[in-house]
């Protein structure tokens, strides 16, 4: 994407697949980073004009305002079902959901598991920040043990509130899925790796290889009550030990995709 203007080479600019609307996300929230990566991938693959996104309920409920392509807004947790409906009548379009951990791993557990089990040829961008952001910081299914939230004021007690759910690991056990990995947004190197995974996920769909999901560890400075920088440290030091960055399922055919 290097282009020339006068004596200046443009190294990076805001992707075309984002609209001009500033996001409502809090300063330093890495939802924006994930949006940007998806948009960059759509630009690079040249698929902005043939892609349909499905927004969730949660902080990214307004994702459809930020992406410069066709979008629908799902009921809480139902994005994979809605995406299924779209993909089954428009199989040639690129269809993806963008969901958080409350949406995907709690209320939408049924829909995500079965979309994956069917090998639905869609891409799922799953942001895991271990908390309900929009409602003000309650425990989510991925909240870490002992982590304080407004609904676990003394910390998540695993004896009564159970343990975090590792969605990438669980979904990777389903036969029909082609690409399931976990990535993180806590530093530049990992952001680049995340982008590469997002691209591979979309390429998996473009090649008709079925279900792809990138679980992305993301920050919530406001509800974690940490600065944006400290939040990235929290991902690295607290979240990654519970949610390891790894490829959990990669269809061997994916290596043959030319990207």
């Amino acid at each position, binding site marked *: 994407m290097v282009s020339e203007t006068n004596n200046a080479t443009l190294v990076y600019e805001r992707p075309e697949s984002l*609209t001009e609307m500033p996001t409502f996300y809090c300063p330093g929230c890495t939802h924006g980073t994930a949006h940007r990566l998806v948009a960059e991938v759509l630009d690079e693959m040249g698929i*902005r*004009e*043939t*892609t*349909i996104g*499905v*927004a969730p309920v949660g902080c990214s*409920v*307004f994702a*459809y*305002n930020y*992406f*410069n*392509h*066709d*979008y*629908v*807004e*799902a*009921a809480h947790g*139902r994005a994979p*079902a*809605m*995406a*299924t*409906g*779209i993909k*089954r*009548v*428009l199989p040639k*379009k*690129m*269809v993806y959901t963008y969901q958080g951990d409350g949406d995907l791993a709690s209320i939408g557990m*049924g*829909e995500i*598991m*079965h979309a994956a089990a*069917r090998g639905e040829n869609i891409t799922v961008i799953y942001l895991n920040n271990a908390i309900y952001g929009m409602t003000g910081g309650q425990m989510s299914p991925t909240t870490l043990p002992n982590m304080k939230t407004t609904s676990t004021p003394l910390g998540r007690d695993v004896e009564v509130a159970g343990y975090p759910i590792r969605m990438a690991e669980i979904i990777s056990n389903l036969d029909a899925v082609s690409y399931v990995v976990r990535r993180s947004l806590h530093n530049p190197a990992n952001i680049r790796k995340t982008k590469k995974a997002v691209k591979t996920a979309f390429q998996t769909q473009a090649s008709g290889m079925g279900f792809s999901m990138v679980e992305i560890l993301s920050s919530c400075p406001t509800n974690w009550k940490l600065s944006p920088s400290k939040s990235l440290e929290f991902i690295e030091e607290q979240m990654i030990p519970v949610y390891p960055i790894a490829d959990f399922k990669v269809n061997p055919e994916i290596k043959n995709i030319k990207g």
Partner: protein
Amino acid sequence: MVKKLLKGNEAFAEAAIRAGCEGFFGYPITPSTEFLEHMAKRMPELGRGFVQAESEVAAINMVYGAACTGKRAMTASSSPGISLMMEGISYIAGTEVPAVIVNVMRGGPGLGNIAPSQGDYNQMVKGGGHGDYFPIVLAPASVQEAIDYITLAFDLADKYRSLVFVIVDGNLGQMMEPAELPPMRDLDFITPEWAVDGETEGRERRFLSSIYIDPKDEEVTNIRLLRRKLEIEKNEILYHTEEIDDAEIVIVAFGTAGRVASTAVRQARQEGIKVGLFRPITLSPFPYKEIEKLADQAKSMLVAEMNTGMMLDDVSLSVKGKIPIEFYGRMGGITPFPDEILDEIRRINNSPPTDTDFNAREAWLDRLELIIEGEN
């Protein structure tokens, strides 16, 4: 084309296919399952979308997604399944995308049973999901009518960007009777200008959502939906009448109950009783005015339903106290016999009611107790 002996649910499903349905998403539930089974066979062989979903919740949200693309999409279920779908139904209404839902009603509440019922009248006609919206509700009384009105349902859904329910009961779903299917229509629909079809080249991006964060915007939407309802009321009311011109007793009944009442009316006419049948086909919009007109001509009405008198309330609103209204209902999955209605007609004919201000339900419950005793 010649009429063939067709099984209800299968014929309904085939009618939907021939009407251009490109996406069916459902979950098995008695007594509607044959609908899904027929779709499972036919949709893939036609290259159209079919998913047996993991739940009714998922199924309706698949319908929601497919409907957002502008394609004709539908589901079929039965009462408890429809309850589960109410979330998606409200979202579909709020997003103003067309969708057709067939409800093969069964006895309830709760798990109830799998026998035919009309107990979902209020849920279907008055809404059921959260928020202000107005679905169109069609109530056929034969396999042929169901075929015809499923076709009409898709046209109305597209015309008004509306939800359309086609409500039948297990009798019709399971019944075999001679009927004729329409020819297969071409899928040459023009993609509507609101559709999220992922063809962004040369146009602005589109998005579909039921969110209106600013109450002013939500109110604008509520007003638009209400205006649409009023327009539908003006244009789309459907009903069927029998022997109505000189009727002194008018029976109002829909669906299977209407069909049973039709037999009773014919028998009563042979006995010389001036009785007629008014069978609403659109339960929403409800034919209030048409029923009011009958109240100016008839001496009394009898509402017959397979529920506790849900439509009775709408008939009462129509009649405005002009004449007495009696009620006869069977519940719990019991279909009344024509003789039961005939006895009611004879009773009313022998001692015509004059009081317009009595509790029809209480009087009916007293009679029903004796009827049930007699059956046992």
